[in-house]
């Protein structure tokens, strides 16, 4: 009635279909970069990127996407986008939090964000 549980294994093709397309695989490599940075596997940021064949731009895009996802979850409890006004105000606050003494250029970005947020519904 019961098959021998030690005789067989989980077929590889079952997991194969989880691997996903090129973009999803890149995201997984970026996640590995993030884990290796946290675990200090390699001597430098550049060496970590090289280990997983990820470029600086690709990793920064991944960090940006992750940060936005976290903003959505923190603000609305889901990964659905928050409305434009809220997002712009959060982004403005992020900038002002990071740039404690903002340069004129950063101030001008903040000003533009404020204008955009005020015009948004």
């Amino acid at each position, binding site marked *: 009635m*019961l098959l021998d*549980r030690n005789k*067989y294994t989980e*077929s*590889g*093709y079952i997991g*194969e279909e989880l691997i996903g397309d090129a973009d999803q695989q890149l995201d997984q490599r970026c996640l590995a970069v993030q*884990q290796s940075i946290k675990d200090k596997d390699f001597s430098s940021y550049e060496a970590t990127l090289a280990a997983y064949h990820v470029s600086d731009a690709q990793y920064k895009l991944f960090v940006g996407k992750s940060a936005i996802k976290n903003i959505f979850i923190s603000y609305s409890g889901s990964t659905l986008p928050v409305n434009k006004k809220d997002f712009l105000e959060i982004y403005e606050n992020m900038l002002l939090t990071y740039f404690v003494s903002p340069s004129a250029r950063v101030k001008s970005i903040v000003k533009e964000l404020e204008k955009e947020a005020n015009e948004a519904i």
Partner: protein
Amino acid sequence: MPASVSSVKHVITEAEWQSCKALGFVFYAPGVSGSVVDLINTNFPGLELLQFLSEIDILLKPMSTKNLSKVISFKVTESCELIFQYYSEDYNDKQNGLMLSRTLIRDKNEITAIHDFFRIPGTSRNQGHGKTMLKIGLQQYLNVGVDLIKVHAALEDGGYVWAKAHFTGAKKSEMGLILASAKLMLKTEEFKKVKEVFDNYYNQEPNGKAFPINKWANMPEMETILRNSNWHGEINLNNQELLDNFRNYVTG
């Protein structure tokens, strides 16, 4: 289907078990006394049995035209084992057979889910059924409070795909063998990166049972080596980061 924990623990009723039987499931537990309802409610509280078996049946039944066996078994040794098996009469046919086995084990310290085996007919592959089965299982593992999921990653490229799915390497000796293969097959510079990950983990955790083999799987040079590897993997569901990574991978 979100894999999250129900706020109220499900309790199986006799009527629920009768519905499971109506789906064709039989209880086979020679030498074990007690009803399946009592055994599960006592040892694996929270399991939504009918939900679990219905989802498995809906997923697997259309895959085979052969006679199907649907078995729930229970074993009591030093631990309690609840076994689910679903298989076609031609299960041994690698191309057309259907067979699934999942085991929940409760011992003194923890509850473990073993992914014993899963084979689906060639005509049903690459259609997302593996992903669906993982989601179905994960929901119940969270309901029951499973601590660990275990898989034997081997054959048919399993060593690579389960590493990609965030299972961690449980045995240092097996990770050492993979490292040795890498040394033989990779260029010096490539091998150096692989070894750095190995050394960093085991220097900090000399007896570690959760080597992050996922890192190796995301180094393109390691794909061929891992596809030919044989290792025992685990996912610790109490590790929130690992759970999130696994859940995102399965549901993404």
